[in-house]
């Protein structure tokens, strides 16, 4: 099965990229393996407890993607800087208690591995 990797660098709401990435990933998951790497501000996307009165909950969208089989990973350096810390214990497929289920914090080397295992790559950033 072919693999698509999506690299994101924006947080939710401020730009449309989290939603566009969701639509791309959802379409791709019907036939392909999908990796999503959350870099820089994109590590805010999986934060629990979002109440976007006027928008669609971005954390929920990405958790849903993980539930459908997408591998969603956040950069450890970017996440740590922004106050999201990995823990040893994995609960609901996540190693960060502030994150939605299914989304984990990993080293930046995971981006490199994702790329080397991919067929196509999409990057979205402001």
């Amino acid at each position: 099965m072919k693999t698509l990797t999506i690299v994101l660098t924006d947080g939710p709401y401020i730009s449309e990229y989290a939603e566009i990435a969701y639509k791309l990933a959802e379409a791709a998951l019907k036939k392909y393996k999908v990796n999503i790497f959350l870099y820089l501000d994109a590590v805010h996307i999986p934060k629990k407890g979002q109440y976007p009165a006027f928008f669609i909950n971005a954390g929920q969208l990405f958790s849903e993607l993980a539930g459908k089989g997408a591998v969603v990973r956040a950069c450890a350096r970017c996440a740590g800087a922004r106050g999201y810390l990995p823990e040893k214990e994995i609960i609901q497929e996540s190693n960060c208690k502030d994150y939605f289920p299914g989304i984990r914090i990993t080293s930046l080397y995971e981006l490199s591995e994702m790329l080397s295992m991919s067929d196509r790559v999409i990057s979205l950033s402001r």
Partner: protein
Amino acid sequence: MKSVFYLLDTAPYGSEKAFGALNAAAVSLNEMDVTLGLYGDGVYLAIVGQDSRKLGLPNLGDILYAYGELRVLAHEPSLVERGLFGQTLIETIELADEEDFFEAMESSTYVIAF
């Protein structure tokens, strides 16, 4: 071997993107052919003599030197437009005219823009 072209078109220090692009390029070095392409405002990264201690930020020039094996291309028309053509540039950086710069993008397996 797969190749990845990281496109940086944002100025260093004012944004985390230059630091992010350098780190992403560094971790890919073992597994892929990596090129960091400086384009538009990204070419400011090429200026020699950066000293960011007083800002409390990592010195991006030093990071470039530390990864000497990383191929860094600077888009010449962007340099000229920004008044950087006469400036001393970090010596590990290759100047590329538009044709060579675009060819490097086209011949890479992936292009990732930050």
